[in-house]
């Protein structure tokens, strides 16, 4: 928590915050990292197999093979999400399943499933991007800023 936020709390609240932090069980950082490494590595390894499959068996180049690869990974992720398997793996793997693109697909599919009872328009459509939305919004804005800066710099440089 930032210092600015801390100042607004009463002394009792500050005391409680400190107390809560002391009693919080420590996180097994090393174990979590090893699990994330293994799970993330395996998912990327799988992605490499899928990509090579498309490269060898169809008319794809290194660049264009990325699209069907991502689509297949996402399809696999949604199937695992629907069958409830992805959540189990995610509990074990932590960021190992969240960081790959399969985690992005999982967040969309699980949000869509979860809010199904609220109807298809307000529930599924409205909540699909609940988690993935910030990734897309920040990604797009960052890409816009970076591309704008590069384009303007190239113009100034006269190249």
């Amino acid at each position: 928590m930032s210092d600015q936020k801390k100042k607004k709390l009463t002394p009792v609240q500050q005391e409680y915050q400190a107390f809560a932090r002391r009693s919080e069980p420590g996180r097994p950082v090393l174990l979590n990292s090893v699990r994330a490494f293994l799970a993330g590595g395996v998912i990327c390894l799988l992605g490499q197999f899928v990509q090579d499959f498309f490269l060898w068996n169809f008319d794809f180049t290194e660049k264009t093979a990325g699209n069907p690869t991502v689509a297949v990974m996402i399809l696999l992720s949604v199937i695992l999400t629907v069958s409830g398997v992805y959540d189990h793996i995610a509990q074990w793997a932590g960021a190992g399943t969240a960081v790959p693109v399969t985690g992005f697909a999982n967040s969309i599919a699980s949000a869509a499933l979860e809010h199904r009872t609220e109807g298809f328009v307000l529930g599924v459509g409205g909540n699909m991007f609940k988690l993935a939305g910030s990734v897309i919004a920040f990604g797009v804005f960052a890409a816009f800023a970076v591309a704008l800066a590069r384009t303007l710099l190239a113009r100034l440089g006269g190249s």
Partner: protein
Amino acid sequence: METYFWAFVVGGLICVAGQLMIDVARLTPAHTMTILVVAGAVLAGLDLYQPLVDFAGAGATVPITSFGNALTQGALSEARHFGLTGILTGIFEVTSAGISAAIIFGFLAALFFKPKG
């Protein structure tokens, strides 16, 4: 064979970076993903992400950082041909497959299945 090794190692390491942000920096998973995407977009702008893709293959293209990279790459390549408006038309050029697939399969999942557990 070597590609598979580096795909595993580099992909694993990017996930470890995410895990450390969650465990050590105490960020929420949503903040972690957002930071990784922005990092990918910025690295692409510095021409540093493509070398990683050439080196590690799917180890660099499967993690979410690659989404940021693809957004910037698409914007830059269209900007080269069409100027500033190219940035707007190009941002989703490369990532269309990923976003569309996630929406379509996610929607189908909600149509035909109920949540488990």
